């Protein structure tokens, strides 16, 4: 564990606040015209999935967590936990579903992920910025609807609902931004 100044915190870092590990999801600098600088942070409790807003003076000392990233295969879920396997040691471990509320929409059985761990505890799964996923449920576009930009909702294999252009059909592969969960483009294979 190392200490850093709050002003050096970046989005995506893991820090400790009152002994709870948090992922930094937003960071905004505030410089009052007549005062010293502050940072407003939005943190995600990696155990409960709850978020927390907190303000620090840029000079405050913050505990940064030394995390390790391991290549792991996602195996399955029993509804309460997700089960992963470390690709080097073949050790299997469970992660409570609550801690991966956002990531769960992108977990595909058998795929490899970068898993962030702090000792024995899993703090998160690092998703690639974009993922290609198959459309498993889609209604046909409304006939005669030629309005540009018309859209509809489809489901992909993990159950995530995505807003897409009207021409997307079931069975097609679409690229999704994992941060915003928004449709990016159709992938022609």
């Amino acid at each position: 564990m190392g200490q850093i100044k709050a002003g050096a915190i970046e989005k995506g870092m893991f820090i400790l606040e009152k002994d709870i590990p948090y992922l930094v999801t937003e960071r905004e600098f505030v410089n009052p015209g007549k005062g010293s600088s502050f940072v407003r942070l939005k943190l995600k409790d990696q155990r409960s999935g709850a978020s927390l807003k907190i303000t620090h003076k840029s000079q405050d000392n913050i505990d940064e967590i030394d995390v390790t990233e391991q290549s792991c295969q996602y195996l399955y879920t029993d509804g309460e936990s997700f089960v992963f396997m470390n690709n080097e040691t073949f050790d299997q471990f469970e992660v409570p579903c609550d801690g991966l509320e956002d990531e769960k929409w992108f977990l595909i059985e058998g795929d490899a992920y970068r898993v962030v761990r702090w000792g024995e505890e899993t703090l998160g799964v690092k998703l690639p910025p974009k993922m290609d996923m198959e459309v498993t449920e889609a209604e046909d576009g409304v006939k005669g609807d030629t309005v540009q930009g018309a859209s509809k909702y489809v489901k992909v294999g993990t159950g995530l609902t995505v807003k897409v252009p009207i021409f997307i059909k079931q069975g097609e592969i679409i690229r999704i931004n994992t941060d915003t969960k928004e449709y990016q483009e159709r992938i022609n294979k």
Partner: protein
Amino acid sequence: MTIENLHNRSKILQNIRDFFNSRGYLEIETPILSPSLIPEPHLDIFKTAHTHPFKNSREAYLIPSPEVWLKRFLSENPINVYEISKCFRNSEQSGKQHNPEFTMIEYYSMGFNHKDTMDITIELLDDINNKLSFSKLPKKHREMEMDEAFKLYAGFSLEQNYHINNLKDKAKDLGIYTDMSDDWETTFNRIFIDIVEPNLPKDVNLFLTDFPSDIKTLAKNIDGTQWAERWELYINGIECGNCYTEEANPEKVTNYFKESSNVEHHVDMNYPLLFKKFPKCSGGAIGIDRLIMGILGIDEIQGVILFPYRDNI
């Protein structure tokens, strides 16, 4: 930045100039390179050097605001003036509201106090809304005292809990991080920035008035109180402007210079002598780029300036 927004930016600047010119204010230009600055311990400045081929070079600084020269001018020429100037602030990490180089207007009105400057600033915002059809600035204005803002958004009266120990207790009650070494101003700012500022009304042009005098500035104190004759302007929740009734008492200015001398630039300790004949006046300053963000409805400063600063080119 789009060509359309460049046109709009140009129209906004012309409108601001027309507004002040038509009211008899003189536009002046003062240096942005200065051998000394007014000490403001919280501001990091850009330092350079004025070199000499055979003698030692001397430090010079890019101004964080044109105040240092405008006040020197006013001590000799007590007339209504404004300046639209490039300003520079270091160490403020780039973000949606910050660029190390930005444009600011400062306007000084003789015989005015901070409330009079508020009136003319409201006139300016109304004028922009009336003359520029694309303006998205709120139509309404609201004045709110700092103490009222604390009551509304922090749930307690700042005036009645002014002592640092009370403030620290309140911060703890609100779950706000504090540190043993925090002074009064830091404790105030922790609460203000954590819970008060984010909740300020966004559907009006908000004039937040009567700041604590424990935040040391060159604003005149309201006699017999812990408040200073000062306001800040918030547009869409973003701080865009600042105004003082200017402190004109040379002893008080000298004290400010002595108390604030822990800065990393040269301070001219003779500067307070200018205030031996300084006019009663009030100065306002508005960040032009942030004002344009409000007028155009753009939420990033990078959308209203050409070539936002980047380290990697």
